[in-house]
């Protein structure tokens, strides 16, 4: 990892930027009611079952959905304050957003997708190399694999030099090997990015592996005090699942085997 890649991204005005979020929104089956904060360089995982309201939370942070009552701030900047009728548009929030589905502009090449909102072309080149898609720069998203498309999506979000990175189950549609590689890559670069990262996942193992902090979200309700207990029990739960359940254990075993095969092939 070349640390100098991230050097030009330092913005003194945002040193110590904290994303503070308090959201309430009436959904069809329950009320979403959460409050949390995320510091720069920290990866916060919103963990919970499908339909718990996790994606809605980051969609509201990005400005793609409107809350009933909310206050969202980044450092001193107010993004949403329903009591003061403030809601700045998505384009002005400076978020990087990685969608669950493969969402690359199909009519643009990989390079043009990544460079779509980039200010620094050199940074685009570095990202393409770092995410190992430099050789695909002229390919269309429809012609590359799902794993490569999601790498492209993360590069695209990072290339605009976001102030907050939001990822909505970005690895859930990937095969085990690609999922593991991208988890490891994101874990290794999260500190250098120096921005708050919110990662939505239903995969406890993924959250335990990547996150600095976890927020369990169940039926739209988050309990920060559960986090430590939840993490510990998740580890235990995960271990027991891997040991007892054939499906869980098999997946882990396959991932390990796939990685070891790849390492052997990569060794000269």
């Amino acid at each position: 990892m070349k640390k100098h890649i991230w050097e030009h991204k330092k913005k003194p005005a945002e040193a110590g930027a904290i994303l503070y979020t308090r959201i309430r929104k009436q959904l069809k089956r329950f009320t979403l009611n959460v409050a949390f904060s995320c510091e720069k360089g920290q990866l916060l995982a919103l963990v919970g079952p499908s339909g718990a309201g996790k994606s809605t939370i980051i969609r509201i942070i990005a400005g793609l959905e409107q809350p009933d009552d909310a206050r969202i701030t980044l450092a001193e900047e107010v993004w949403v304050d329903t009591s003061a009728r403030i809601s700045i548009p998505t384009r002005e929030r400076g978020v990087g957003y990685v969608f669950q589905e493969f969402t690359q502009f199909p009519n643009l090449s990989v390079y043009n997708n990544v460079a779509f909102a980039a200010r620094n072309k050199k940074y685009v080149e570095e990202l393409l190399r770092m995410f190992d898609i430099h050789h695909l720069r002229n390919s269309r998203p429809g012609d590359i694999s799902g794993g490569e498309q999601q790498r492209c999506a993360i590069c695209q979000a990072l290339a605009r030099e976001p102030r907050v990175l939001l990822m909505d189950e970005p690895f859930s549609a990937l095969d085990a090997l690609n999922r593991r590689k991208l988890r490891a890559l994101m874990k290794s670069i999260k500190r250098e990015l120096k921005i708050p990262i919110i990662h939505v996942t239903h995969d406890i193992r993924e959250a335990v592996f990547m996150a600095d902090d976890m927020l369990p979200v169940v039926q739209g309700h988050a309990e920060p005090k559960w986090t430590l207990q939840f993490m510990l029990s998740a580890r235990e739960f995960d271990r027991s699942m891997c040991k007892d359940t054939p499906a869980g254990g098999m997946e882990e075993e396959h991932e390990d085997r796939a990685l070891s095969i790849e390492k052997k092939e990569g060794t000269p």
Partner: protein
Amino acid sequence: MSFRRLAIAFSVSICIIYAGLIVSLFYFFQGPLFFSVLFSARTLYSLGLSVVTATVVTVCSVFFALPSAYALSRYSYFGKQVIDTLLELPMIVSPVALGAMILIFLNTPPGQLIQDSAHLIFTIYGILAAQFITTVGVATRLIKAVFDEIPRRYEELAWTLGQSDASTFFKVVVPMGKHGIMMSSILTWAKALGEFGATLTVAGSMAFKTETVPIAIYMRLSSADIEGTSVLVLILISIGLGVLFGVRLLASEKTYMGT
């Protein structure tokens, strides 16, 4: 007979009806007459007028239809359902009735203001107005179907990448739907080219002035010139089939460039 064979038999029967009509044109076909009618000054004028007016009207209709279709596809606003229903007006009302409605409007005080400044009745501007009113609803309906097919998440991605609504429309939505928009434009052009009822009602049928190809066909038929009529119909069919061939080529691609 299996259902598959029955269904195919129905589709073939439709083909036989249309093919029979086209082939019957050749019953009165005379080679020398074909070229003398085709290259006569009156036919060339009608052809030129039809192509120019249809092209101008298509550009205007698509220009109006693009933002209108996007609004109908993406936004919720007061009166949206009414507008959506009114788009069908040219399809519900017969073209002659639509032309009559234009004439009636031009006899009202606001319509008279337009008539005094633009002189629509019995002029080329009348042809443009009649064709525009007939095609703009169709163009909007066709382009809306293209926009409906583009998943909204591409626009959301563009917004997160710092694009405004307008730049998202021009840089993301239109390029992604360009094949569908081109197909819609070609169909709009074909509709404008074949427009007869409203054009005849508003602009009349003056040779070398407001006589488009469909009107020329009607005029030749009125004077019992079957040979001349069949030549003009063949010309119109050739243009129409050429356009449809173009549409088929474009239709082989997706209406939006999805993955």
